[in-house]
């Protein structure tokens, strides 16, 4: 069992606030991810949980018990670090055995456990090798294996695969997720790669300057970001933002340059507000009847799809098109958006302008859930 709670946790280093008023509960057997740009407080949260740092304010609880005063050893959490920290003079087998040998566990128990872990991580054939003889991905698996050798309350990982090649990262994240499902432990994972976070996490917490901006399952974060900040750091290529105003009485968005108008019914209020209209590149429509004219600035072919960057005169927008047939650089096209696929974020606080909850056309969640039959 591992039910982990941060309750109004703040950590200060002198005048610098590393994390502020963090309240989050990680459920037992959850794959929970802290995601944010560098120095947004992700690693600080892991260090606080591990017990290497003490919170300035607030409580950390594991299975209901306050652990603020406990040493790292008493908390019984296992950690995989970014730089792996394998012993170079030991074989993979001895690296895996090490944490249990240190604790004086009987040899037959260690070997039994080692066999099980080696099977799950597909590293049986590597056990006789030293770290220097292993590839990056193999070393990574051994390091994860070493953490798993202990029966820990939860397993903490600080950007564990960021040093690997792109291709290997794609494979390893799936392996990690499978492994976590299989062994049914709680994983708490830190990454600065949004695609990795979305791939592995059951739920993710988005951090900005030490503050949590949203906690939700990845798909909900992607489809219903609460703020412009969250919208802007999740998704690749990044979301498009068009500055303008929303006229609540007429139900219409107008871009600041007047070129783009989108009828958006179903929002509450009559007032006119300064907002950013936001839409994802895959929801950007090129060549539609009611778009604004724009010039194609560049085309990035990715094989399965293409990214077309257009310039409307006042800003650059990205469109993601399926396949390889695209307009050419220099072409004039129209650019628009499907009204049901947009969000609006207020200028100033960046909060999402909420739609009337009962309005069917504007509820993106509803639209998305019409599943595609197979």
């Amino acid at each position: 069992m591992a039910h982990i709670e941060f309750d109004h946790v703040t950590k200060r280093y002198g005048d610098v606030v590393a994390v502020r008023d963090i309240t989050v509960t990680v459920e037992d057997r959850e794959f929970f991810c802290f995601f944010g740009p560098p120095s947004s407080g992700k690693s600080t949260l892991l260090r606080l949980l591990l017990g290497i740092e003490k919170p300035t304010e607030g409580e950390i609880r594991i299975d209901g018990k306050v652990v603020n005063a406990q040493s790292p050893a008493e908390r019984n959490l296992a950690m995989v670090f970014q730089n792996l920290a394998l012993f170079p003079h030991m074989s993979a087998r001895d690296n895996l055995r090490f944490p249990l040998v240190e604790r004086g566990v009987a040899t037959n128990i260690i070997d039994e456990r080692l066999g099980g872990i080696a099977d799950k991580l597909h590293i049986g054939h590597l056990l006789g090798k030293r770290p220097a003889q292993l590839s990056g991905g193999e070393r990574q698996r051994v390091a994860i294996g070493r953490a798993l050798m202990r029966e820990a309350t939860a397993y903490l990982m600080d950007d564990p695969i960021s040093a690997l090649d792109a291709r290997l990262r794609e494979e390893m994240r799936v392996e990690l997720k499978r492994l976590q499902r299989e062994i049914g432990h709680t994983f708490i994972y830190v990454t600065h790669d949004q695609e990795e976070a979305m791939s592995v996490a059951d739920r993710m917490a988005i951090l900005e300057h030490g503050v949590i901006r949203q906690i939700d399952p990845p798909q909900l974060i992607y489809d219903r970001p609460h703020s412009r900040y969250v919208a802007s750091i999740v998704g690749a290529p990044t979301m498009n933002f068009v500055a303008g105003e929303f006229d609540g009485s007429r139900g219409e968005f107008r871009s600041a340059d007047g070129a783009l108008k989108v009828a958006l019914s179903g929002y509450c209020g009559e007032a006119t507000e300064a907002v950013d209209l936001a839409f994802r590149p895959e929801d950007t429509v090129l060549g539609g009847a009611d778009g604004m004219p724009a010039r194609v600035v560049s085309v990035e072919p990715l094989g399965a799809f293409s990214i077309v960057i257009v310039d409307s005169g006042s800003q650059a927008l990205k469109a993601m098109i399926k396949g390889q047939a695209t307009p050419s650089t220099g072409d004039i096209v129209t650019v628009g958006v499907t009204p049901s696929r947009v969000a609006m974020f207020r200028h100033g606080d960046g909060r999402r302008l909420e739609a009337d909850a009962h309005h069917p056309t504007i509820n993106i969640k509803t639209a998305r859930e019409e599943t595609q039959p197979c």
Partner: protein
Amino acid sequence: MAAITLENLSKNFGAFAALKELNLEVRDREFVALLGPSGCGKTTTMNLISGLLHPSVGRILFDTRDVTPIPMDRRGVGFVFQNYAIFTHMTVRQNLAFGLRVRRLPPSEINRRVGAIAEMMQLTKLLDSRTDKLSVNILQRIAIGRSAIVEPAIFLLDEPLSNVDAAFRQVMRTELKTLQRQFKQTMVYVTHDQLEAMTMADRIAVLDQGILQQVGSPLEIYNHPRNVFVARFIGSPGMNLLNGRLSAENGQTFVDLGPAGRTDALPSGLARAAERAQSANVLVGVRPEDLECVDGATESGLTLVVSFVERIGHRTVVHLGAGAQSAKMTAHSTFVAALGSALRLRARAAGLRLFDRSSGLALTLE
């Protein structure tokens, strides 16, 4: 003018051959990406071009001039490393101006160029800041700006974006491409990230184990990989490769995929290429986006079991298996399938590729 010709280039470190008989031409003003996994020889190639390393065999030409014996500092190439080396006791402005001051350019010219490059690299507001407190992202921008400012005809970049965060990497990809167009440089870019190579390069040279695997435009390489290594390495996820056996029926050619089923009849071009196969045992290549679900009623087609579903934003990667075969399919984000359920699939005929199983080479008509 600054074309680069690599002629029969090899580099050995003791008994280890880091690079084997590389022949590659980088045209004037071209953006070429050297792409491959760690240890493939891409950085060695880069270091040979810069003069940091000396080849064991072969020569290097800049245009028609043989630069093989010329030391690094006299080759006049710009170089940006993965680990930027910024002078931390200097301001951003002093760092940017460094190369120009060494070259004793007049102060007015230095100011003009520093202003222009700062504007382009979005460093204008930071010009008078000290560099010791700046983020990794900004430092890498300064490193690129500092090399670009001397306007080298040849600009070499060795994984300049691998230490910056993912969001910033996206922005920098576009900026580097713009930079290259503006300065009209010949650019050689080392990366292990196929996405970076695909989005920026005019041509990609794929390397593995010190051997050049294929050179071509991003789409040439994506659509017509020369061998199974390139097929797997390019694309996200890479191309699926399934073990199969060629079979003929009523004048048409199919590939039998064992427990996974059978392909549709091969298009005529591919069927003719299949006749050149050394053996009936082949690998069938199909991209994840070229697999599609079909109605259960059709007779031919593939049957694969869902082993894992990965939802990433606008798309879903469905991991599939049948016996010892495995494959991935990309689907819309709304796609739903239960783990363990069997899917009836079809591989679009136009997307099918064949590879010889023993040599790993693509079977084509050329």
